[in-house]
């Protein structure tokens, strides 16, 4: 592992300020020993080498204090970032059962600024924390777990109960502003989806004025079911990141209905135009499950992922694909009505093709490919979790005035350009 030269430089500077010159090579070899041979994290190694050198030069008195004082200054929880040594005060807002024997306790700590997940290592000998009580944590470390900051209480952390109790209400964060970690949101249930997994209690889509986000609640004793259309204050929900997308994990969160409240959920109304460059697998004539509230697409063999074989189904048309403007490729989902308009293939004619011809289903899909791929279209609709749910889509036709403008633009050499 290579040593970050900035780290060496930082240490060297620190000593230069104190009037001591230390060769970079020496610092580097010490760092290397710790990180490479002992597998110590670079930040930790930096601290250790600094302290060692301070001792060596008899500087560990007041200067040592000044170095570590930063970690004893109390900071707001929202300011804790991975890589920091922190001192924070906060309230234990929830405790969850530890997932490993190495962990004594785990839960969420909050102050008025925000909340963070924490773990108390079994080896830390820290006192047992109680829910809803306030504590001060001195010299805890913060690292990153699945993209979210997580605080670790280790043997070097001083934990002390705090008497003065402050009351605070965590303020909700706009959905578009969410970051991985723990947050509070005020949102409306836009969609309620059937759970895809037996351990799943509920899943769906939440929205506020700024956007929408998926949510999931895993089964446990104290599950609260959200109702579609209602607004909820959700305190201390987990915000997870998977493949660059955020979702809320409401398991264990405190959920209160905001009765009678109305939220105008951002429709995420978006317009994109570009070339239709790709058609996805779910394109064409499909069969849907007729079980009340299901409506899932069936496989060719009429199999519904939840309700098994459904020989009584209803037909539908849809197009999944990618519209590409040359800078960004956007997934689009086009429902029956717009798909019919765009391709000129109606549901009835598609059914006729499918029922009178063994390759009918493929024919429908192929016809759609032939009429759509490589064409310029303009789509508008709402962005749901990275896919544009198309409400209107029309082919773009050739614009000759644009052509004339471009000839003008191309005929003047750019002034002050990089021309050679």
């Amino acid at each position: 592992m290579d040593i970050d030269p900035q780290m060496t430089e930082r240490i060297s500077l620190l000593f230069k300020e104190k009037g001591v010159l230390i060769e970079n090579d020496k610092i580097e070899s010490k760092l290397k020993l710790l990180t490479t041979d002992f597998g110590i994290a670079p930040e930790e190694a930096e601290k250790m080498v600094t302290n060692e050198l301070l001792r060596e030069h008899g500087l560990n008195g007041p200067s040592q204090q000044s170095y570590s004082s930063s970690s004893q200054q109390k900071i707001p929880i929202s300011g804790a970032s991975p890589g920091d040594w922190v001192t924070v005060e906060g309230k234990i807002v929830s405790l969850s059962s530890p997932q490993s024997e190495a962990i004594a306790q785990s839960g969420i700590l909050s102050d008025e600024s925000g909340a963070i997940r924490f773990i108390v290592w079994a080896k830390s000998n820290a006192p047992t924390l109680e829910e809803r009580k306030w504590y001060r944590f001195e010299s805890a470390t913060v690292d990153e777990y699945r993209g979210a900051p997580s605080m670790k209480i280790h043997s070097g952390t001083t934990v002390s109960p705090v008497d003065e109790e402050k009351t605070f209400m965590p303020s909700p964060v706009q959905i578009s502003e969410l970051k991985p970690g723990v947050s509070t949101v005020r949102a409306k249930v836009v969609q309620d989806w059937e759970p895809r997994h037996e351990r799943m209690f509920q899943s769906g889509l939440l929205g506020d004025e700024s956007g929408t986000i998926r949510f999931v609640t895993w089964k446990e004793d104290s599950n609260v079911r959200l109702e579609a259309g209602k607004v909820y204050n959700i305190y201390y929900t987990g915000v997870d990141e998977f493949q660059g997308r955020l979702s809320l994990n409401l398991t264990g969160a405190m959920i209160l209905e905001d009765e009678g409240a109305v939220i105008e959920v951002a429709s995420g109304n978006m317009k994109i135009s570009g070339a239709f460059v790709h058609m996805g697998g779910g394109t064409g004539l499909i069969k849907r499950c007729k079980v009340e509230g299901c409506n899932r697409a069936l496989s060719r063999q009429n199999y519904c992922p939840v309700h098994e074989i459904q020989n009584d189904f209803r037909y539908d048309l849809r197009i999944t694909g990618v519209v590409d403007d040359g800078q960004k490729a956007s997934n689009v989902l086009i429902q029956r009505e717009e798909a019919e308009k765009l391709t000129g293939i109606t549901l009835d004619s598609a059914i006729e093709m499918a029922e009178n011809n063994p390759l009918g289903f493929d024919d429908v899909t192929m016809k759609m490919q032939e009429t759509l791929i490589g064409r310029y279209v303009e789509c508008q609709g709402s962005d749901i979790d990275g896919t544009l749910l198309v409400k209107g889509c029309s082919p773009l036709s050739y614009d000759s005035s644009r052509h004339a403008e471009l000839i003008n633009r191309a005929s003047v050499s750019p002034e002050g350009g990089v021309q050679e």
Partner: protein
Amino acid sequence: MSKGGFSRPTGSFVREPAKRIFAAELRESRLQFRDGDDEKSPSFILLPTGERCNRIFICGEVTQKEKRGDQNTFYTARLRDPSGIFFLNAGSYQQEAMQQMAKINQGDFAAVVGKPGIRETPDGSIFVTVRVETITTVDRDTYLTWTNDTATQTLDRLESFGSTDDSKKASEFYNTSIEHYRRIVYESLVAADI
């Protein structure tokens, strides 16, 4: 890694956009590189106008189409845009592209989404081919719209040339003449309208 910054997980998949490019520019592209050390890291071509591309969207008239090979059949075709010729191929590893290629006729206007690659012939000359992902017959209107689109995006690239990392690299590698590519755009626009 910077403090407090949340890095994207490496597994997240973002489809590469299809860059718009005239044949005359693609023909002059020479630098191909991989972004990352992984076997599956995407391969890019650095365009002389200063952007990397892994996928392109092109339009033109099919001037020649040929089925080749006995057991491993593949198609080659030429696609003429207002600035020059694209060399297309579709092999048996792209069943769908091959079937689409079979339906295309010489003289048709076609739109192609594909991956560009730089090849060296046995006699040492270098040329750029396009491995077809999809090819469809389109009308003249689409071809003209594509010409506008490609002209716009090429001019955009030229106007930001020198201010992005990729264009600085391109300048170093190709010693790009802005004027040369501006003229290609101009001539393509004029030629397309006839």
